[in-house]
């Protein structure tokens, strides 16, 4: 038999729903999320605002008073001022760190100190291991 054998593939069923509107919607959603999402993680620093009267300080705690000037220098307990980055090397600070009793650090900042300088001091204190930091004026 020389007759041609034709293989007919089964005809694909025509889909009822066209994909084009779906793609339109998905693209719009994609654009929306691309334009509105932000990827930077929000990080934060706690500023405690205790209710007045609840801040009872235990009697046997040592306190270390730091005065932050607008030039970014820190005065220790009324003594001479030092640069922020050398704060950890000061005798009073290292003494306070080695004490057995918990130490409360009291920060007194001048009015003109900008927030970045203040944040840097709080960072330095946290890095030095002081947990209990009270900011004068915020409590």
């Amino acid at each position, binding site marked *: 038999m020389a007759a041609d054998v034709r*293989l007919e593939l089964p005809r694909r069923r025509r889909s009822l729903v066209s*994909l084009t509107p779906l793609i339109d919607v998905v693209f719009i959603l994609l654009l929306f*999320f691309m334009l*509105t999402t932000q990827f930077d993680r*929000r990080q934060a*620093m706690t500023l405690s605002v205790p209710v007045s009267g609840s801040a009872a300080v235990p009697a046997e705690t040592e306190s270390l008073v730091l005065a932050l000037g607008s030039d970014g220098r820190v005065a220790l307990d009324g003594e001479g001022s030092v640069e922020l980055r050398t704060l950890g090397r000061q005798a009073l600070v290292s003494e306070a760190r080695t004490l057995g009793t918990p130490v409360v650090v009291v920060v007194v900042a001048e009015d003109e100190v900008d*927030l970045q300088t*203040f*944040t840097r001091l709080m960072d330095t204190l946290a890095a030095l291991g002081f947990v209990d930091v009270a900011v004068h004026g915020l409590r």
Partner: protein
Amino acid sequence: MRIAPSTRAPADHDAGLVPMINVVFLLLVFFMVAGSVESPKPFPVLPPESSQQRESLASRVLYVGLDGALALDGEAMTDGSLAGALAAVEGESPLALQADAGITFSRLREVIDALRAAGVVEVELLTTSVPAAATP
């Protein structure tokens, strides 16, 4: 034996789109899961840099601009109107302060005082991480 060339039905041209849709769906899921949708800032704010990398727990953000202006939920605020706006929604979660790095400490104290008067107990200050090149 000859196989007849397949004659594509006109409806079949959708089939070529399927890989593209797959990719677009993947991108869509990525942006939905990896990012977070945030309302636009009422005014430009440059938060201070900090090395303390605790993640923020607050759900509401109070913006403090360089000129001291306040904005909460997209509305401009004054120190006086803050109390009413905050009392309207009772919430246990802390309030985040998105303050410009250049504001003075006295302005920060005023804002905190206003918040305390409004009954806010916990305030966190939003910061950005220190750029890697700047770390000593």
